[in-house]
């Protein structure tokens, strides 16, 4: 490769910085057009139901299975540490708080990005490359309203529900390991949990977290699909980008949200 002069490097850097800003702006306009303004066509509800099925219901299996296993592992690990201090009845509280505050929203969002997010990107990218989006436009239907908006809403609705289901089955898995297997007294398992878990501070904050994640993950997934290069390499690149960007965004936002919600005590 030819060596680049310093000036050339600076120019390249500047150009890629401008590109990043442009993509940001484009994705915001994209979101605005999709969600705001003339509702488009009738039957929007039908479209939403269909997307809820493919985005939400289809992700249920992986969420439930991972939830059970993560709850079980948490209970096992927690038990082995807590027995050293003779406070194994606190394992319920540990499992519940870990799941509700962190693992529920975060792991669900990561799994969602991998399962539903990549599928959304690939689906929309495929529609773009087979000219289905153009075709919709020429039929006089705005693809942002007809294709993008139902998928965005389905993501916004599904992820918080999935996160709550994840936490519940996780706690159930934890209780199964702790109570039925390791022999923690059932009464103290649940009462310890109930004493330390606050509905507003823990449950609702967790739901709020997953709402934010839902917004970001779905946005990234749908935008990457819509903005991808309409070739097979372009689609596969966009799918990878979706998973990487969405995961990074979730983890980064999780830190900020945790600092805001649980930081001051």
């Amino acid at each position: 490769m030819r060596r680049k002069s310093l000036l050339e490097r600076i120019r390249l850097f500047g150009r890629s910085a401008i590109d990043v800003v442009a993509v940001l702006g484009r994705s915001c306009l994209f979101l605005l057009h999709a969600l705001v303004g003339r509702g488009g066509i009738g039957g929007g509800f039908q479209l939403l139901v269909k997307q809820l099925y493919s985005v939400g219901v289809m992700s249920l299996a992986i969420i439930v299975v991972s939830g059970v296993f993560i709850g079980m592992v948490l209970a096992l690990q927690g038990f082995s540490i807590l027995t050293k201090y003779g406070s194994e009845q606190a394992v319920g509280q540990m499992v519940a708080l870990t799941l509700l505050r962190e693992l529920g929203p975060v792991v669900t969002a990561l799994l969602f990005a991998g399962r539903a997010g990549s599928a959304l990107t690939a689906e929309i990218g495929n529609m773009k490359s087979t000219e289905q989006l153009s075709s919709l436009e020429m039929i006089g239907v705005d693809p942002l309203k007809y294709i993008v908006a139902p998928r965005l809403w389905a993501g916004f609705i599904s992820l918080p529900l999935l996160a709550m289901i994840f936490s519940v089955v996780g706690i159930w898995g934890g209780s199964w390991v702790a109570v039925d297997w390791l022999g923690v007294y059932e009464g103290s398992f649940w009462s310890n949990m109930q004493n330390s878990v606050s509905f507003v501070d823990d449950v609702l904050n967790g739901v709020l977290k997953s709402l934010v994640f839902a917004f970001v993950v779905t946005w990234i997934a749908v935008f990457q699909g819509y903005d991808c290069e309409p070739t097979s390499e372009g689609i596969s690149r966009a799918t990878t980008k979706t998973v990487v960007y969405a995961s990074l965004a979730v983890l980064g936002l999780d830190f900020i949200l945790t600092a805001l919600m649980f930081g001051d005590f």
Partner: protein
Amino acid sequence: MQNRTLEIGVGLFLLAGILALLLLALRVSGLSASPSSDTYKLYAYFDNIAGLTVRAKVTMAGVTIGKVTAIDLDRDTYTGRVTLQLEKRVDNLPTDSTASILTAGLLGEKYIGISVGGEEAVLKEGGTIHDTQSALVLEDLIGKFLLNTVGKEAK
């Protein structure tokens, strides 16, 4: 039809989500259905609240009757003011009842125990418990113990 199974699937999914929220509320966080109007507020001033946290429970004879809702410093007396929220059904606390900060087990969490006094008059909404017993601070205890020993040797 195929459309039908799809709708049922989505419906079940939404129901599962709502059920999950309900379970989290009732079973996991122990949110009781009773609204906050069934409670009343009391204040207690402690010299040292060390380790007591908001949401710690308030007990009487070992039975939970309320929780701590706020902890702040009283500027004039330099003492810690603890706001207690007690259930309405326990409305017969005598004015000279004692509130003490106790510890569950040796290293467990701090909570407030109330023991009954003998007065006729009872505490009302916004009342103050004057007779308080501060938290036991381990460092102080060890300090006292050491001083005692040193004192004995000097004799």
